[in-house]
């Protein structure tokens, strides 16, 4: 079993405006640990840096600072060459993450071969069939020769999940895996992911903007705002008893038919100035200070900050 530790992750992007250059800190000293059999949810709005965390863990981006260390069951660190055997990713848009030119079989056979899970053609064929069956795409021999456009969104996402499992990965990064799917099939895909996690004892990082699925699907939640983790802790604690004003704002802004009586015209609140400089950890039950406060967003571009 593999454990993945993210420590003090920092990612800067250069931005050019006019002739000046500056940097945008997309991820600002983020730390967490993924352990087998548990799910961590990374919750935030667009621009919060949650997808950047996913990309750096999947090694699609190089971190500016900090470390990402995967450790094998026996305690030895995963070497660079075998990193991709252990850590895989499921992308957001199943319409974009499968190559329209290639068959489903190609998408699954390549990782099997690349990571030495299948040597002969026969082994590959059996491996592909097995993977397809695990994600409920049956009959496998019927699905394998198809091309992505012949599949529905939900089916495509199942293929993408199978692809992530193909190298035998123990750590799966799921970047908004259901947000592009029709609502009535989202739970099916999430439940599938949950089943595979139980069967293989996977460590899962679930990235989403949806508080409700984050609460039900994961064990721990990290709320990100402008590159910082502003609140962290067990899922129910964070959602039902939010302490940071940003988490409170998110929870109030989400549509909630249980509170149909409330007036939509009321303001859902705002981030307090004090909270820009700190985050709350439910496991220790205490606040922690940032070395520098989170920058205030541009007017109209995001949630408002209370003017005190």
């Amino acid at each position, binding site marked *: 079993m593999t454990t993945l530790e993210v420590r003090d992750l920092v990612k800067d992007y250069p931005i050019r405006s006019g002739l000046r250059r500056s940097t945008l800190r997309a991820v600002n000293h983020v730390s967490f640990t993924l352990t087998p*059999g548990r799910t961590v949810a990374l919750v935030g*709005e*667009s621009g919060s840096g949650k997808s950047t965390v996913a990309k750096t863990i*999947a*090694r*699609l981006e190089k971190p500016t600072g900090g470390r990402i260390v995967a450790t094998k069951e026996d305690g030895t660190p995963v070497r660079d060459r075998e990193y*991709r055997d252990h850590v*895989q990713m499921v992308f*957001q*848009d199943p319409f*974009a*993450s499968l*190559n*329209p*030119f*290639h*068959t489903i079989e190609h998408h699954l056979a390549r990782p099997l071969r*690349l990571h030495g899970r299948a040597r002969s053609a026969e082994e590959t064929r059996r491996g592909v069939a097995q993977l397809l069956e695990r994600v*409920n795409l049956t009959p496998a021999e019927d699905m394998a020769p198809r*091309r*992505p*456009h*012949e599949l*529905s969104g939900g*089916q495509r996402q199942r293929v*993408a999940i199978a692809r992530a499992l193909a190298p035998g990965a123990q750590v799966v990064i799921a970047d908004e895996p259901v947000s592009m799917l*029709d*609502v*009535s*099939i989202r*739970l*099916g895909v999430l*439940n599938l992911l*949950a*089943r595979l996690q*139980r*069967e293989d004892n996977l460590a*899962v990082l679930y990235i989403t*903007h949806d*508080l*409700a699925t984050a609460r*039900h699907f*994961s*064990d721990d939640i990290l709320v990100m705002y402008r590159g910082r983790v502003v609140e962290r802790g067990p899922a129910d604690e964070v959602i*039902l008893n939010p302490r940071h004003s940003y988490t409170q704002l998110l929870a109030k*802004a*989400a*549509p909630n*038919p249980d*509170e*149909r009586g*409330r007036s*939509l*015209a*009321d*303001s859902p609140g705002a981030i307090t100035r004090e909270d820009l400089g700190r985050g709350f950890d439910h496991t220790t039950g205490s606040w922690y200070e940032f070395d520098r406060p989170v920058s205030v967003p541009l007017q*109209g*571009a*995001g*949630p408002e900050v209370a003017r005190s």
Partner: protein
Amino acid sequence: MTNLSPLPGGADESAPPVGGTTDPIATAPRRGRNGLRALLPSWSPKLGIGLFLVLGIALFGIVGPPFFPNPNAIDPIGMTEPSGEYLLGTTQTGQDVLAQLAHSTRGSLQIGLLVGVLATLLSALFGIVGGYLGGAIDEGFSLFTNVMLVIPGLPLVIVVAGFVPAEDRGWWTVALVLAVTGWAAAARVLRAQTLSLRNRDYVAAARVAGEKRWRIVSVEILPNLLPLLASQFVFAVIAAILAEAGLSFLGLGASNSHTLGTMLYFAQNGFALQYEAWWWFVPPGLLIALFGCGLALINFSIDEIINPKLRITRQVKAVGDVAEAAVAGHEAVTESSPDERRDDLVLTVRGLNVVYRSERPVHAVKDVSLTLRRGEILGLAGESGCGKTTLAYAINRLHRPPAEVTEGSVTFHDRSGQDIDLLALENEELRAFRWSKLSMVFQGAMNSLNPVITIHEQLDDVLTTHEPGMSKEERRARCAEVLTLVGVDPQRLDSFAHELSGGMRQRVMIAMAMLLNPQVMIMDEPTTALDVVVQRGILREIIRLRDELGFAVIFITHDLPLLLELTDRIAVMRAGEIVEYAPAEEIYASPRHEYTRRLLESFPSLTGDRGSFIRTGESASRTEPPAASANERAQP
């Protein structure tokens, strides 16, 4: 070299680098035709004629020459008209024109093919490799490409040819020079496309899978570039044959071989035109024209693969059109008697049917009846493809062919007491009706705003069209007023769409919808692309403005929880039909239809129970998740 636009099909490589306007391939979901089959153009008369011309001429050039006598053989009969012995007559020195034509076609094809291959290879090297690797290599390659592009080709060729003695100028020298001066435009197009493909998720997925770079370029990216490469190749061949002809005409062509260009050169120098020897002068030019035309026709078909929007969808006419029967005979505006109309109604839809008349007709909206009260917010819920957007467009008659309203009526009950039959309005009446009584807010405000003119011009357009009496100052004041209403600083009037955030753009769209104080606003997923906090802010504005101004709203979304909070009544749509239509509380408390229940269950409650969720990490003894749900079918 002179004639054809270097941009086949107005390719998008020159599209502005920022703002991300639509790249046709990126946006158009290419469902239905992907993979290998998509690489083959669909059959059309254009393609047939093109292939016939190209193959015929190629066959003539490849197989023909051995059947004809020596094209250089001189016959003392001199210049003669076509006859039994010489089918296309003879030249000034008595050479057989037809034999020359066969040999020259072969020569021109050789040059065209060689240049095509070389130029495509060069453009692929600089465009694809540079585009994929990025960084300094890309900058360098791109600069080099652009420099090659702006340095005029023919003068350069002439200067080079001037230095190379005529006796050293074989056909392959000419081909080489043409290839070197002719690849740059294609490289630019390929680079732009590679840049767009490089950022696709499937390339990222291949990297995560551990694929090597060369494999990503050759296996994941290259196949998707094949149509573009084919189009560039075809274009390079046409351009090369034309350029060679031009060079030959200037006396700078290949000196030791027959090409159509040299043939024309000799015809011109032999005063073929002055002697009206059409049989000598016309055939070579015509052959080039037909070959180029054939290739261009083939390129049309390839362009349609690259940009599916170019394809013309043929509308299948229905026999005995129901719509006309339903619509005909209606007076557009009728004064209804007070007893038969309900005072608080503003819009009535009765038995509306919309059919997409494609080769496989799709019944997108089936017998839909709705009523909208004044000041009411009506929710229209449904998943993608359920027909909710088609319905919304049909109400305002914005649906485009092949969609067609086949049956039903849409009646607007105006404040003034008039009833307006929307389906019977004439073009000009319809135009005047739109926006002044019923306005719309579309999904994705980025695309709903014209990217190249200011917000003010787009707001102003509405007023100049609908309120011609207003002065310029009044119009500007009104525009500023509506922006203030939705909480946007009026100073933003002179901004362009790309200078605003997503939430602000959607506010601008709502402001625009309110310009003429309409009685109904149709909102199609107005907040779907936005973050929850921004979405919440916009919903607040909608509620507040509705309370102030009293317009009615049809709010379309897949987000049922949002509708439950926001709306008065909800219509749930599936497969073109309204399966449940009831007040929001009722839908929430006691949904009747099984589909409504399933939709509701799809949204786990934030604060309540887990519903049909199975929590990870718990014992596997809990029930297995249901297999792929029933409605998860492949899209048509």
